[in-house]
């Protein structure tokens, strides 16, 4: 897809901001999740769940959805395309997978935060440490793929290159 250079730069900037913002937000969330999972201070655990609820509701989920949408737009408006190179396809799959798991987990976190805000002992809540660490690993993998752009044309990309040479 051919778009003006100004527009493609704008989309690329938005893509980087949302993707890096998502990674940073997950790091901050992980700190809260560690407190919620291991702290024995009830007030700290309760505050951690409150922060996790806010961050997942107003920062992480919006950034994840924006990353998928803007990332797709960025691929389509750049010379890389969406299905021409394996690294772009793998990035897309990982991002969509992380977003789906996040949306499922978000409901649980909101529910746990609601319970933690009541008189119940929040220390009994299971936390979401495994999901947080898994999400972080996926997002770092996506960032590494974006920087290194490992070689590899898909069949679709190969056909397109042949057509362009004819």
């Amino acid at each position, binding site marked *: 897809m051919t778009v003006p250079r100004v527009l493609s730069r704008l989309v690329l900037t938005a893509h980087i901001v949302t993707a890096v913002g998502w990674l940073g937000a997950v790091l901050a969330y992980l700190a809260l999740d560690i407190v919620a999972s291991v702290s024995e201070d*009830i007030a700290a655990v309760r505050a951690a769940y409150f922060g996790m609820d806010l961050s997942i509701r107003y920062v992480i989920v919006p950034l994840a959805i924006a990353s998928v949408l803007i990332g797709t737009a960025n691929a389509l408006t750049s010379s890389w395309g969406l299905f021409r*190179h*394996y690294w772009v396809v*793998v990035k897309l799959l990982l991002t969509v997978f992380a977003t789906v798991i996040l949306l*499922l*987990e978000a*409901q*649980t976190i909101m*529910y*746990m935060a609601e*319970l933690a805000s*009541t*008189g*119940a*002992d*929040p*220390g*009994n*809540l*299971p936390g*979401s440490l495994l999901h947080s660490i898994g999400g972080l690993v996926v997002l770092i993998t996506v960032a590494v793929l974006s920087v290194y752009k*490992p*070689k*590899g*044309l898909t*069949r679709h*990309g*190969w*056909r397109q*290159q*042949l057509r362009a040479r004819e």
Partner: protein
Amino acid sequence: MSSPPDQSSPPPMPRWVKVFAAIAVILVLLVVVALIWFPGKHGPGRHIHGAHSGTEQRLEPTA
């Protein structure tokens, strides 16, 4: 950038993609095994169940 494609056949899938795919398959299998081994111990249901047990234990007033 990728090397120029061979005119006759599409390029083979790179090794790093195969490694990624193998890791993904292993992780999926691990999750499936965990779900079978510990039924009801994963997902929102687990958390909600755990949370319900949590509500039964009321906080004692702290000094």
